[in-house]
């Protein structure tokens, strides 16, 4: 059974994977997003994710619908963690099951890119030398076509 969830608990990766298993699937692609310590010169100590949970879950569901429109036989589950996370903690898990492998890679990539565009989740980085909400530090992440633009990596 597909599911789309915001949680403040540790994510059970296996549970996300098993949720998309079905006899028609010949591939399950799993994306795991983790907390990165170094971004260029910046050293992250920890980070805090905040969400508008009810809307975020709706937007995750919407991503699932968009995926189904492009890859009709694909099953998707997405779980995003919020709260305080340490280096290497799992922040997001996406599991995509499909009859053949190509669609599972494509749909998984699509899901993570869309999360960075339309899902109301915010990350606050705590660095060795300060802290900042990510996404608006340059004040130039303008919205286009009614949805937030992708964060620059």
């Amino acid at each position, binding site marked *: 059974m597909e599911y789309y969830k915001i949680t403040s608990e540790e994510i059970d990766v296996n549970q996300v994977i098993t949720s998309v298993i079905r006899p028609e699937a010949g591939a399950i692609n799993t994306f795991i997003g983790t907390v990165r310590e170094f971004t260029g010169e910046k050293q992250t100590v920890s980070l805090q*994710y905040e969400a*508008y949970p009810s809307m975020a879950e709706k937007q995750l569901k919407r991503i699932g619908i968009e995926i189904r429109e492009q890859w009709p036989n694909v099953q998707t589950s997405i779980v995003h963690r919020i709260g305080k996370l340490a280096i290497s903690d799992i922040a*997001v898990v996406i599991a995509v099951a499909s009859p053949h492998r190509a669609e599972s890679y494509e749909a998984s990539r699509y899901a993570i890119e869309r999360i960075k565009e339309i*899902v*109301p*989740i915010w990350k606050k980085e705590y660095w060795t030398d300060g802290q900042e909400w990510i996404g*608006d530090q340059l004040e130039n992440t303008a*919205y286009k076509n009614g*949805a937030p633009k992708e*964060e620059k990596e």
Partner: protein
Amino acid sequence: MITVLFFAKQQEQLGLEKVERSESKLPVSELKQKLIEDYPELSLANTMTAINEEYAEEDQIINDRDVVAFIPPVSGG
């Protein structure tokens, strides 16, 4: 009466998670203008608006009992 929600940096700027406002039947752009006047420390640059958990355009009308949320650039994933 409408409810206005703030998140992330804007929530910190205001020290507020939400406010109840008496106005309704006004477009998003007008509510933004009023909020900026009432809270000079608030920046709504690059901010999307959601009405009842759906993204809304600047000219969309906010009705009585709607929940309006300001969505600064997102950074999940």
